[in-house]
């Protein structure tokens, strides 16, 4: 009927909804995005793998068996074995834990520190804000993989260092997101109403502002987590991640390079694992954004 024009002539007037309706609406929105649902399911499967890996894995991840080396996938070794005869499946399952530990802890740290910086910077503003933002700009002026390499190259790739590096890398981005939300909320009338009542800064920050900053923060955190997997795996591949013999997907792929033709499964399965997890997390965070912040396209 109408000409095919894809712009809105009017913003729909919000109709009143009860809370139950709102929740159901979120649920429906999520389910209406089958792709995001798939992403979430993939994420959860890997999360379970990370939690219960050692119980799921049929073999020890270090269990070498030279006679069994470079075996193609069989019932015994569903994903085949590597050049030391280790079970690829078990290494992947146990490796999930490392990824979640590094990426997850790093991201959580980054969220905590980034949120603190963003809250302070956005709420108090002024010179402090100016200084903090300039400092974050500096961190952002160095491409993240480069910064990670330099830091790990000089201090050495221990588990703690890896986590710290992930955190340092993502603090600026999270701080910026939080800051921009705070800047927006700070001028909102309900926050001014709190200041007029003489509420303390801590009340304003944690009761009035923070709860409203949570949805975008959640979205940002899930996105950062997916990047951190990417980063940790890349570091592993470059030899600056988790050190052997601990299982690490990036490292596994690096080892597989020399057996591309003779044992392609050594590459295929860890690559699949990384891709699935990162893509799944990406899809999940994209879905989260659509559910929690409809109308906003990308960040």
């Amino acid at each position, binding site marked *: 009927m109408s000409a095919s*024009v*894809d*712009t*809105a*002539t009017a913003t729909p007037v919000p109709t009143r909804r009860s809370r139950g309706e709102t929740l159901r609406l979120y649920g429906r929105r999520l389910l209406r995005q089958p*792709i995001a649902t798939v992403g979430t399911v993939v994420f959860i499967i890997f999360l379970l793998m990370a939690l219960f890996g050692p119980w799921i894995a049929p073999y020890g991840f270090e269990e070498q068996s030279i006679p069994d080396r470079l075996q193609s996938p069989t019932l015994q070794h569903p994903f085949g074995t590597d050049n030391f005869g280790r079970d690829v499946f078990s290494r992947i399952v146990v490796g999930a834990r490392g990824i979640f530990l590094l990426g997850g802890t790093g991201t959580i740290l980054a969220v905590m520190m980034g949120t603190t910086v963003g809250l302070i910077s956005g709420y108090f503003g002024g010179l402090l804000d100016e200084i903090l933002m*300039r*400092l974050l*700009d*500096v*961190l952002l*002026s*160095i*491409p*993240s*993989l*480069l*910064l990670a*390499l*330099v*830091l790990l*190259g*000089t*201090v050495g790739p221990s588990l703690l260092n890896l986590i710290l590096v992930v955190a340092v890398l993502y603090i600026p981005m999270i701080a910026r997101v939080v800051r921009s939300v705070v800047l927006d909320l700070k001028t909102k009338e309900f926050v001014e109403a709190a200041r007029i009542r003489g509420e303390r800064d801590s009340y304003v920050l944690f009761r009035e502002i923070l709860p409203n900053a949570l949805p975008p923060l959640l979205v940002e955190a899930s996105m950062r987590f*997916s990047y951190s997997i*990417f980063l940790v*795996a*890349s570091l592993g*591949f*470059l*030899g*600056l991640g988790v050190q052997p013999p601990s299982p690490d997907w*990036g490292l596994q*792929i*690096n080892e*597989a*390079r020399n057996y*591309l*033709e003779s044992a*392609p499964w050594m*590459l295929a399965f860890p*690559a699949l694992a*990384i*891709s699935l997890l*990162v*893509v799944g*997390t*990406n*899809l999940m965070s*994209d879905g989260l954004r659509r559910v929690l912040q409809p109308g906003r*396209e*990308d960040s």
Partner: protein
Amino acid sequence: MLSFIVRRLGFMVLTLILASLLIFAATQILPGDVATMVLGRFATEQALDNFRGEMGLNRSLVVQYGDWLFSFVQGDWGESLSTRADVRDLVLERLRNSAMLALVAFVMYVPLGIVLGVVAAIRRNSWVDHVISVGSLAFIGLPEFVTGLLLIAVFALRLDWFPSSSAIPPDAAFFDRHTLERLVLPALTISLVSLAYIARMTRSSTVEVLGMDYVRTAYLKGLSRSRVIGRHVLRNALLPTVTVVAIGIGWLIGGLIVTESLFGFPGIGRLLLFGIQRRDLPLIQATTMVIVVIFTMANLLADILYGYLNPRIRFR
């Protein structure tokens, strides 16, 4: 406009100085004792002392930093600890190679990314959009070493269209079949992530512009769809893309490091890795600084271009 440029330039210089401080701190303060870091834990006290003297590590940190920065600005980037070669020559030569690789990738992903983003936005919620959007979400998540290895497995080992190693001679000419052939696979590898990134961002800015009142006005002026898109939408939608492309260079650099190592390509990323493996301090510092300068300049250029293209900034 001029004051805008001056302001941005000022910020860039400030950022660079702070970044140099950060790099200096990361390489010479964080590790604790530099001599031990470079020579290893089992070096003799004598050797450590000699090294410290040679590198001037006995001076105060402020002096060391000032000296280092001053020499760097002057073009004296020191001598490589592992190869004893002049760091500047080494870095500049590898930089040239990386620039070739980056350029090939750049001309592949920037236009394509923009086109895909715009198409997805115009056909919003159609299957074309879904394919592009989900595809870009997926590609953004695929690490370069995974895509690179897949490309090698298929195009080099299976089909044998391209060589699997991209080692090129130091004086390789750019427009040489031999060179270009070796650039294709790594360039493709680097492109995918950035391509996806640009497509996503372009899509979102285009979608935003499509919802603006002035686009409605344009349609209701009776303009054809192509004219509305070409004249009224793109102009505004591609403006943020300028910045996006510059930020994407950060991804490109990360991609370079991984890809060069994967393909054995003699670029600056591999040089950096080499430096890190050998704990070659001057080499690490110089490569990092060079990359940061380039990245910062790209952002500055993008800022200025953005300001120039945006009448709201140009005629403030």
